[in-house]
């Protein structure tokens, strides 16, 4: 439909509803357009091959003698599809009964319980009893990779995992071994999977056959809360869902976004985020009292910081910002820096090896291991290889966690050293004030990914102590200085961003939705805005 190309369409009827789709569309997808989700196992929208082997998506087509697999059946003009006719439902119910013939029915200890397509469709098809009372076939358990386990008895041989590895990751290391009822999923004997994207096989598994070892027995599906977010592991900004339980991140799963990560994410991202549960956090504001830092409340801290800034006055200084900060943080921070007349703003991005998923060119584990380096560049911050270790006798603002490896004396000479961070590194002791801010997982906000796509993330965890979002803290300081209003909701923070940074012009919090939107002029123009 793009490029002004004429595309033929066909109109068919699915369960009595007319739907017009581009020629070549498969019935399973046409049905989704009118809200009909045909049960399926082997079909996965992100995996190009469609073996039509699970026989779950069989539908009745008027005038055809046999049920047809809707995943491969092309929509045709005038086609009348019945997804829930008696014949189709009977066939589906039978598939479930067949799948349960050898299934151990171990839902009470299965990690997929509650999110299992076998469980779901067993209920949907009302297949709650089996006539099977012969002995079951028992196959056991295997290790697929250093962190993925395979429970063969739960496996329904839909081959999604095999086809993800082969057709999406182009790494034909996972296969179906043996045949017939003895089939199981296997790697080469003695060799485990070793692909930077292999974690996706766990996500595509419709049942509990493939499980991340670090998730085994950790949480039941119904005990977890799911929050839409963006992976902070690199500059790609994969859309993710963060699953939390008891205020801890339990796992992170990719969330579909055709413009960014399709259905996938890399293993680095998954592990990276779960690690953020660890470490000691800054929980209360602290202000300098002689040669000590004293914990205090926000009122006191904010007014103390504002007074100190007034004493220092509009003196040129420097700032060091972490590329983990949200766009809203940056927007408010720049207002503060402008007040101080600080122009030298540096940031450093830790870098790592890249990895790509061959069939999704945009999806890469990128060298920039931070979510918002691009945002910082839009604000005009300067990317440096090493942060300057000596600080002149002038104001210094540090925002974000970048002082872990800073020298002990970092910032000692500064006339005013303000630190906003989530943790308490050694060098933070030299600050005049430590203001505890929250991580991206503890607030709402946006990041700008490697190609200028602004994407929303949402609060998945409660912050520790009385830490608050950076933008909120900064807005209160600015209000105390008499140059703005207190901002206490993310929409207003985003509005502040749109008003103050031209690249974001025209965007709105609601407008970018959960899939994000490119900054002004899209990717190409933005590239010109940013010195490479």
């Amino acid at each position, binding site marked *: 439909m793009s490029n002004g190309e004429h595309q033929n369409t066909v109109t068919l009827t699915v369960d009595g509803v007319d739907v017009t789709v581009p020629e070549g569309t498969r019935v399973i997808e046409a049905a989704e357009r009118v809200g009909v989700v045909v049960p399926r196992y082997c079909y996965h929208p992100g995996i190009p091959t469609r*073996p*039509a*082997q*699970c*026989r*779950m998506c*069989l539908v009745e087509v008027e005038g055809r*003698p*046999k*049920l047809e*697999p809707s995943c*491969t059946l092309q929509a045709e003009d005038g086609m009348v599809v019945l997804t829930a006719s008696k014949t189709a439902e*009977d*066939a589906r119910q*039978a*598939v479930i*009964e*067949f*799948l349960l*013939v*050898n299934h151990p029915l171990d839902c009470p200890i299965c990690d997929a319980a509650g999110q299992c397509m076998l469980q779901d469709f067993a209920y949907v098809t009302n297949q709650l009893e089996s*006539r*099977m009372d*012969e*002995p079951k*076939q028992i196959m056991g358990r295997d290790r697929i990779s250093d962190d993925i386990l395979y429970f063969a008895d739960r496996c*329904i*041989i839909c081959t999604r995992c095999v086809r993800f590895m082969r057709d999406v990751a182009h790494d034909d290391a996972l296969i*179906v071994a*043996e*045949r*017939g*009822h*003895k*089939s199981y999923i296997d790697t080469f004997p003695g060799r485990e999977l070793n692909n930077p994207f292999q974690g996706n096989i766990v996500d595509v598994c419709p049942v509990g056959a493939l499980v991340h070892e670090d998730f085994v027995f950790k949480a039941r599906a119904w005990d977890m809360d799911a929050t839409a977010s963006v992976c902070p592991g690199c500059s790609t900004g994969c859309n993710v869902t963060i699953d939390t339980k008891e205020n801890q991140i339990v796992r992170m799963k990719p969330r579909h976004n055709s413009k960014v990560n399709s259905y996938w994410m890399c293993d680095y991202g998954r592990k990276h985020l779960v690690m953020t549960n660890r470490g000691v956090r800054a929980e209360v504001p602290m202000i300098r009292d002689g040669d000590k830092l004293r914990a205090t409340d926000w009122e006191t801290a904010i007014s103390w910081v504002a007074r100190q800034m007034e004493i220092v006055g509009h003196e040129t200084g420097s700032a060091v910002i972490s590329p983990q900060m949200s766009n809203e943080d940056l927007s408010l921070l720049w207002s503060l820096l402008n007040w101080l007349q600080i122009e030298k703003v540096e940031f450093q991005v830790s870098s790592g090896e890249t990895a790509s998923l061959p069939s999704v060119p945009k999806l890469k584990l990128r060298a920039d291991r931070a979510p918002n380096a691009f945002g910082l560049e839009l604000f005009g911050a300067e990317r440096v290889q090493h942060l300057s270790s000596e600080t002149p006798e002038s104001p210094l603002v540090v925002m974000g966690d970048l002082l872990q490896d800073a020298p002990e004396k970092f910032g000692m000479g500064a006339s005013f050293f303000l630190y906003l961070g989530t943790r308490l590194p050694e060098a933070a002791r030299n600050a005049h004030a430590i203001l505890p801010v929250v991580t991206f997982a503890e607030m709402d906000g946006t990041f700008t990914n490697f190609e200028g796509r602004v994407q929303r993330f949402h609060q998945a965890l409660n912050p520790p102590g009385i830490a608050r979002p950076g933008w909120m803290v900064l807005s209160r300081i600015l209000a105390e200085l008499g140059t703005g209003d207190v901002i206490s909701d993310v929409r207003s923070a985003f509005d502040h961003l749109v008003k103050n940074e031209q690249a974001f012009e025209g965007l709105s919090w609601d407008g970018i939705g959960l899939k994000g939107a490119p900054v002004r002029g899209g990717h190409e123009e933005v590239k010109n805005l940013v010195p490479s």
Partner: protein
Amino acid sequence: MSFPYVHELETRTLLSEYQGKKDARTLKSWRDEGGYQRVRKAIDMSPETITDVVKESGLRGRGGAGFPTGLKWSFMPKEDGKPHYLCCNADESEPGAFKDREIIRWTPHLLIEGCLIGARAIGAEHVYIYVRGEFFEDTQHLNKAVVEAYEAGFVGSNIMGSTWSCDITIHTGAGAYIAGEETGLMNSLMGNRAEPWAKPPFPAQAGAFGMPTTVNNVETLSTVPGIIEHGSEWYRQWGSEKSPGTKLWSCSGHLVRPGNYEIALGVPLRDIIFDVCGGTPSGKPVKAVIPGGSSTAFLSAAELDCATTYEGMQEVGSSLGTASPIVMDEDTDIVRAMRRIAQFYAHESCGQCVQCREGTSWIVRILQKIESGDGRLRDIDTLYDLCEQMTGRTICVLADSVVFPLKSSLDKFRAEYEAKMTSDKVAVG
């Protein structure tokens, strides 16, 4: 055992004339008998004419499905600039059938002629003869014949001095019944698991190596040279309007003279079993016959008067299949026999479709249970229901293949199943 025995009902003309005659395996004697003149004739014919002659002859595929061969050939695209392939299906593994092996080991040159004419008709540049791996000895005869034919210039470049070239490669399978299914065969040929694929794409659109391909059975292709030599009218002197010609009958089971017989289609099945094959060795009455290989429906003794044509077998609710009657005498335990058949399909299911992967092995377990006396009446209902759920629901017909004998055995020999259940269990249901 069938050689040199020839029965008067036999028509040993097209396929079996040289079976049992070792000399016929060599190129020299094959040429002495007029071999390869049919290929010469085909080279001088246009592909369309060859296809038309075969169409007119009414020859139907001998692999079991009985699809008209000429029509199949006509599906192949013309002048599309792509390489075309002909696959000769010699993966004979249907229990009961052993006719293709006979052709391969006695008359390999006949098969090569058929392959060449078929290739000519569909514009194939390469013929792959997919022989089942177990046929080691028989394949050696075929190998020799192919090499001889290459050396004589009958296969390869510029065949018989013409501008036409065509290669033949013998490809051996490695033990998989499902490689006899045409898409399974092509997958296996390409070095994949012999898993059938869901059509479309049809072989004539995108078959082996993604190119237009036709898959024909050994017997089908071996019939073609005779049709080309004598014409379609000549071929139609045998058989019926819808089932013309002769057919190799692989007869096995409880028979005095089991073996292969070439018989015109249409002869009553009873005559083949009792006259040609001499009835049961025990002299006891026949209880049941599976007429077309193990994937066809059981016939009871009362149904043996049916005509051995595609339509005649259909009339009695079975099918001609590969024309491989398996005869069971009165002492046969039908449940046990059925369990053994089901076991085969469970063993050979490729495992893609759920109904087949789980259904075949479940059927085996139910039958084992009944066999051992632990069955209940409701198991029969379950079996019937599984039959329904396994029919027409899968990519290929392997699941259907176990249903035909199972359902018919339940229909026709239900009493035998029930007799295995102890009376109290029957009462409980």
